[in-house]
């Protein structure tokens, strides 16, 4: 059944991508695409029906959750609704909702109610009334069995809401506030050091002078980088950002553009105050530190290594602990030990007998 995950995902993404192009959240628009793609045929099969229903619902659930944009999440909800009602198993498989995701569901509901999206709210609440949800610990059943090396599931980039928290955080108000505090600090420092006799006191420098402008330019650079990343596939130079921005019509871009105004202004204001400050030229690397942050992953040492570090054992014990424990060691004995107790243990020798029997019959 696991082999179906990839094709189901690409079918869902094809549908959602067409839905995204319409820039609509209407169910009517969604159901037309669903019909055009003959999506209901996905359930045409003769066996393993229940496992397949489980899989399509689990796949669709991901699109209903952040980090996807509101429009894609609406599409995800419509997918869940359509899969739930079109499945051919009885009783139907339910949609699993994890406790950790419940707040996201409630916020989504609130957002659609506030925006008067009648169809979105109706479908979500109708599913709820139909008892279509299972209230679970985790989104899927977990067996600890998948290969750890399995490729990381790729999230479809175009469906994502662009992160705009830096823009939100570093706004006009904040930079004004920071400049004011910085002024205050400088003045206080000046008045104190004038009363001091030693020259050393005046040279104390704890705060970087250009902190406000640095902050603003870092966010600006982040925004520019974000914009450029979108157009990199089309090989557009960064100077054409403004025009490409006009072309981009999806909600996320607009949102980011609106928010960008919030910091374009303070950066102007800071420039005008520059004559009062000493400009510090930072090395270029430092400026791009947010880029590096994004790419480096924090890796935690494995349990085995942590244990090895904390617990020191000597002699045979240490050597034994350093060896990997194979799963079958949990149930079989060391060869030497096995040999020793072979005569006493009837079952072991019987098992060997059976094993040889199995081998000979399979030839």
């Amino acid at each position: 059944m696991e082999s179906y995950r990839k094709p189901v995902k690409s079918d869902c993404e094809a549908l959602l991508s067409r839905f995204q192009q319409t820039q609509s959240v209407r169910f009517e628009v969604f159901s037309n695409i669903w019909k055009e793609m003959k999506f209901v045929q996905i359930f045409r099969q003769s066996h393993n029906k229940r496992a397949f229903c489980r899989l399509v619902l689990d796949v669709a659930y991901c699109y209903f959750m952040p980090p996807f944009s509101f429009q894609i999440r609406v599409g995800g909800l419509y997918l869940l609704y359509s899969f739930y009602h079109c499945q051919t198993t009885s009783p139907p498989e339910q949609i699993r909702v994890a406790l950790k995701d419940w707040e996201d569901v409630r916020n989504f509901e609130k957002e659609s109610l506030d925006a008067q999206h009648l169809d979105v709210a109706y479908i979500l609440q109708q599913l709820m009334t139909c008892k279509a949800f299972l209230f679970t610990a985790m989104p899927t059943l977990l067996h600890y069995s998948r290969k750890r090396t399995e490729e990381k599931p790729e999230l479809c980039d175009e469906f994502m809401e662009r992160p705009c928290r830096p823009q939100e955080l570093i706004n006009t108000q904040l930079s004004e506030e920071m400049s004011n505090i910085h002024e205050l600090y400088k003045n206080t420092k000046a008045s104190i050091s004038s009363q001091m006799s030693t020259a050393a006191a005046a040279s104390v420098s704890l705060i970087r002078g250009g902190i406000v402008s640095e902050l603003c330019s870092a966010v600006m650079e982040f925004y520019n980088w974000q914009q450029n990343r979108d157009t990199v596939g089309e090989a557009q130079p960064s100077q054409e950002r403004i025009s490409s921005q006009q072309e981009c019509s999806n909600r996320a871009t607009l949102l980011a553009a609106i928010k960008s105004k919030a910091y374009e202004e303070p950066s102007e204001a800071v420039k005008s105050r520059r004559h009062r400050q000493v400009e510090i030229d930072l090395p270029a690397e430092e400026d791009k530190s947010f880029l590096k942050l994004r790419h480096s992953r924090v890796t935690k040492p494995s349990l085995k290594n942590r244990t090895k570090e904390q617990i020191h054992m000597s002699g045979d014990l240490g050597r034994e602990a350093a060896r990997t424990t194979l799963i079958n060691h949990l149930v079989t004995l060391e060869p030497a030990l096995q040999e020793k107790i072979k005569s006493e243990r009837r079952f072991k020798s019987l098992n060997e007998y059976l094993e040889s029997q199995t081998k000979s019959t399979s030839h």
Partner: protein
Amino acid sequence: MAASEQPAEPSSSIPDYEFMNLCSTPFHIGSFRDEWLKRLKPENVSFQPGDLDSFEARFAAAMGVGEETMTELRSVCSVDSLLCHSGDQEPDPEVVPPNATLQTLTHRKKQNNKPQKRTNNRHDLYVDELDRLTAGRLPETEANRLPEGELILTINIYFPNTVEKFNHLRAHTTLLMTGSHTLADLRDAVCCVSDLQVCGEFSSTPDMAPDFMSKDLFKSAYFFFEGVFYNDMRYPECQDISSTTIDWAKSHNYPQFSTAKMEDTRFLDLKVKVGYPYLYCHQGDCEHLVIITDVRLAHRSDCLDTDLYPLLTHKNRLVTQKCSVCHVFIGRWYTTRDQFAPSDPCLFCDKCFRMLHYDKEGNKLGAFLAYPYVDRGAFN
């Protein structure tokens, strides 16, 4: 800046991924249930079917829309709007359409064309549908009715591989249990052949054999979850067999383990990770991995009769070892130093064993040693 937030401690009642798609963070099952119930309305967890008419009336009132808008909304969102056949001829829902464009269907066609290992046993076809037989089953008496808001746990018990070694796939059974079951209930629900082994040599008195089952002789057992050994202490013969491990850990500078009683511990009292392998040990050294694969609130389509829990929902069929004389029946005896046997040791069904080794009066013929044998597939 002072306003920077400290990363919050992971909540012990709201599980999240510890390792993506492998296991969750540890959480207390009882408080997990409380967290859900705190967030939901009683009708969300009720086993009654939902009332769509009153829902629509409430929805219209809340959104301030009239009957006309509701009618339109209902028709736009109807399930009919998703179907694509033209009404006159319903296609066969089991046949993949020939001109399908969905990738899933292209994949299914390929899968269907693959020469499949045909299953020749009807048990295999329905093996994963066991629980569906009891879906929505109602109890005969109100007292046996599953309470609304109860938890359902899905538990996999894996069997040690003694004969064949397949590391990729281990035989397991899947049980559904409720939050108020104790670990002792789980122990009693695990069918393992090592509980049924009969110890001893019975060539002179073959009729005596079934009286001594390991289950009745060696009653000690434990579960191990999150640093705690849960020992079975229900009978006076039970011993705390985890003490050896605990003492060893203590003397080797390992983190401390603690103990509790299996029969006093309900699932609601446990702290676990979903998806994480834990341990069940009985008969001294028969060790099983235990994985709780799912914890969730009960749903109206679950079996609602508490008498039917623990509910078996999956079981691997095991290859059975047949009698070496008739090759038909499952082995019940095995012999050693047996002058009649083609091999040493050798496996016999009850009938062949007695025909070959005893005369009409039941007197033992010749020299041999005979031991009762319980096949792994005895529970198929």
